């Protein structure tokens, strides 16, 4: 600290303000415009229109018999009929509420499991590989076993959904925790954080992006597993979900119903992704300046 302050404080402040102004990352705050909205919406809409046009053309050319490739209009008819009679809502509700309940249970089990696997070395060594392995096991494989254990009951359905979602959720959290820059927990230590304080204020928020990715995949697996279970395990006790609706269409060789069911299953999957996970992910990544993709 040798030189006496010949440079006055104000001019230092000015230089610093200048540096700050020059150095601050320029923020591109993109505001909503109809043109940009159209640019987002138009391509997928166009793709769907094209797909239906090709379908219509193939149907008109009668390459395949009617019971294999029905007209788009016939499928649309099935959907509107079922909406009018209310069957569509019953079926959707039946499946969606089960998937949501199963997924919620998966979160409740997968989150502590992931935390333990990530933080306790011996547990990781013991079940870490199993957990990653289970992630690649199609959960349909559990349906026969579950039917033998629980019969064709809701328990079977929930069991299969859990086996689908828990590994993804737990593995997502483990990956999220593994990817925390080691400097952040060290900052917690030098700031005097307790173990609990560090977990609550540093580890969990820092692991959030990975955890969220795990949740998203966990949901996708829940939904798939549920559909698989509903197609295989049909009984009046379970009520009619989308999978049963699809299976019923196949039994009646009713192709329009089959395609309508597939369409509805897809619609739920895309809907939840767009309405729940996409906005969540966006806000989490945005807050961290990681929103490169969107």
């Amino acid at each position, binding site marked *: *600290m*040798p*030189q006496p302050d010949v*440079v006055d*404080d104000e001019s*230092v*402040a000015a*230089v*610093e*303000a200048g*540096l*700050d102004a020059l*150095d*601050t*990352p320029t*923020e591109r705050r993109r505001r909503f415009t109809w043109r940009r909205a159209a640019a987002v919406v138009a391509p997928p809409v166009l793709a769907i229109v094209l797909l239906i046009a090709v379908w219509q053309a193939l149907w008109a050319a009668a390459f395949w018999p009617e019971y294999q490739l029905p007209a788009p209009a016939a499928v649309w008819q099935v959907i509107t009929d079922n909406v009018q009679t209310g069957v569509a809502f019953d079926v959707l509700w039946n499946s969606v509420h089960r998937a949501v309940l199963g997924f919620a249970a998966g979160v409740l089990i997968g989150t502590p499991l992931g935390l333990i696997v990530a933080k306790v070395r011996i547990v990781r060594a013991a079940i870490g590989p199993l957990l990653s392995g289970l992630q690649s096991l199609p959960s349909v494989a559990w349906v026969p076993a579950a039917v033998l254990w629980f019969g064709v009951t809701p328990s079977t359905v929930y069991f299969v959904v859990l086996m689908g979602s828990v590994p993804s959720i737990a593995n997502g959290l483990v990956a999220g925790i593994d990817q925390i*820059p080691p*400097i*952040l927990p*060290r*900052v*917690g*230590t*030098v*700031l*005097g*954080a*307790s173990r609990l*304080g560090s977990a609550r*204020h*540093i580890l969990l*928020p*820092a692991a*959030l992006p990975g955890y969220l990715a795990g949740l998203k995949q966990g949901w996708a697996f829940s939904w798939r597993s549920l559909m698989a279970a509903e197609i295989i395990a049909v009984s009046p006790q379970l009520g009619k979900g989308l999978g049963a609706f699809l299976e019923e269409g196949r039994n009646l060789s009713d192709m329009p119903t089959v395609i309508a069911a597939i369409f509805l299953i897809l619609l739920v999957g895309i809907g939840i992704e767009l309405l729940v996970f996409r906005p969540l992910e966006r806000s*989490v990544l945005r*807050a*961290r*300046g990681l929103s490169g993709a969107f």
Partner: protein
Amino acid sequence: MTATLETSAMTTAVRLTGVHKSFGAGRGAVSALEGVDLSVAPGEFVCLLGASGCGKTTLLNLVAGLDRPTAGDIALSTSRPAVMFQEAALMPWLTASRNVELALRFAGVRRTQRRERAGELLELVRLGGLGDKRPHELSGGMRQRVALARALASAVQGSQDGSPALLLMDEPFSALDAITRDVLQGELLRVWRSTNTAVLFVTHDVREAVRLGQRVVLLSSRPGRVVREWQVGDLEPSAEAAAIEEINTSLREVISSHAAA
């Protein structure tokens, strides 16, 4: 023994006596520090100078309590020194103000007081209106100033009983461009004078050490120990140039001795 430590704690911010640190065990063990004796007086600004890999970070980690010495003693007068790293290491999901508040939150400060205190500290590092910005919206220099404000928050909080605060800084400006570094060095001196904190500042840059420190301590490499120290507070510009020259020569000697070995 304990009694002497306690009395010495009254007159020093930190005192290291015969500190050894080796990593690993057996034949593969690396001895990073060997017999380091060093003390920092309350309110004193000490620069720890040494080549890369000489154990500066290791030493700072020991003082910070992030690691334990293999042998020797470290007597602190503060319960917990504040630390500033080479990277700002801000929580990317928190705003600048919340990052500063985090230090106070862990110290159990109430919410309204936290806000107020964080505001004052951001003001002190001239980031007054920018408390709501996230780290990714700030430049490297601004982030480092937020980190300084956070360190100050924890330094003052760590020594509320009136014992002198201690701030440990590990090459905090080395990742910044020259102009920003120059400005921040000036800011650090201003903040140091206004807060009365003792500073142990690690650097490999002789000019920086002489400009900032009242005392420069040269560390040898592998294993690290204190080679020499210079009083460089309140030097005339010509004396300062001479000091830089002299310390540079010593540093070169220390480094070249390794080529021979």
